[in-house]
């Protein structure tokens, strides 16, 4: 090989090395940029969630409820916590089989029961029916008709995957019970208790409730909440 040829191939090697180095650097910067974009995407997600929360308005609790728990009925010594979603079919089944046992326990002065009307299943309707129905029941609570309204919502439970009952249907159910068309309708249409529903739902998740219905008697989850199991747990408490 002549000197000239050697010089040429050496230059070729150097060029190749420089090109490889450029590729390596570019890959590194592209990767760093991709990671940065992913981090930014995550931050955007958190921002979107925060703004969804704050857009919903101020947090006010309805009558006989707190900002983190649902309406409480009865004055008995044993505390029963119910976690229900108005679109959840198993909650309807639960109400059908165990609802009267709970009513009896309330009427006999044995328990006080808190209806934590959570919105776990908002994606199960096309209109966030879980949130809207729970907020409507809170409006009914202000008019002193929570339990009646609660029972009516289960009697007319819409199917999962549907649009659920419209706001005007929710209002009609209330006015049918004698609730004031103006104030009750305004309460539903303005979404006054939607932030409260979100807060109760959050509190339930924080308490470790992963599904509805969940029945808790004096702090103990009843795994299979039949009427007998609930009565037995109340008597044992």
């Amino acid at each position, binding site marked *: 090989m002549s000197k000239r040829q050697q010089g040429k191939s050496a230059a070729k090697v150097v060029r190749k090395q420089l090109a490889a180095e450029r590729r390596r650097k*570019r890959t590194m910067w592209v990767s760093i*940029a991709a990671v940065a974009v992913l981090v930014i995407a995550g931050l955007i*997600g958190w921002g979107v969630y925060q703004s969804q929360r704050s857009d919903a308005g101020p947090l006010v609790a309805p009558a006989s409820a707190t900002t983190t728990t649902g309406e409480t009925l009865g004055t008995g010594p044993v505390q029963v916590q119910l976690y229900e979603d108005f679109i959840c079919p198993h909650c309807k089944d639960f109400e059908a089989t165990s609802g009267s046992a709970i009513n009896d326990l309330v009427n006999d002065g044995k328990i006080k029961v808190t209806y934590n009307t959570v919105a776990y299943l908002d994606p199960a309707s096309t209109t966030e029916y879980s949130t809207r129905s729970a907020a409507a029941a809170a409006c009914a609570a202000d008019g002193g008709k929570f339990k009646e309204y609660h029972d009516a919502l289960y009697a007319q439970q819409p199917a999962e995957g549907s649009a659920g009952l419209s706001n005007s249907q929710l209002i009609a159910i209330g006015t049918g019970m004698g609730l004031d068309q103006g104030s009750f309708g305004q309460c539903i249409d303005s979404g006054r208790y939607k932030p409260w529903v979100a807060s109760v739902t959050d509190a339930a*998740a924080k308490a470790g409730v992963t599904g509805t219905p969940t029945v808790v008697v004096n702090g103990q989850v009843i795994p299979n909440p039949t009427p007998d199991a609930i009565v037995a747990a109340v008597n044992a408490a």
Partner: protein
Amino acid sequence: MSVTTLTRDVTWPGLRPWLGTLVRLGLAAVWLFAGAAKVGDLAGSGRAVNAYQVMPFEVAKVIGAALPFVEITLGVLLVVGLATRAAAAISSALLLVFIAGISSAWARGLSIDCGCFGSGGQLAAGQSPSYAPEIARDLGFLVLAAFLLVWPRTRLSIDRWLEGTT
């Protein structure tokens, strides 16, 4: 002559970048579906994370809100083939975390839905958890991610186009 062309056409190095494209688009679809299923219910996504009971609720809410957006972005990166190796590395890491999470929920006897494709971690009453299929599915996705981690050069990708510009 024609025989050598034929054999060269079906060799592994010739086929691999195209197979890589399929793998890349497959993994992209996984992330896009997973992200899209959760992005409409960020609160539910946070509850699903919280259902694993491995972090405080406040932290779970942040992770739950951020995750769908990260998943969709990963999906977009993989669709266009940009930073494929980095996207594959992060995909692998995320899938390993998911597999670890599901395994630990299983080991602790929790009764939850993995929340992988929405559903907020809630298991319908009477429904038992299906941890083994969920882990098997994630392991399958992990194989896709590992393929791209080892062989990130694929056809029809921005990475390849960038390579051609120097």
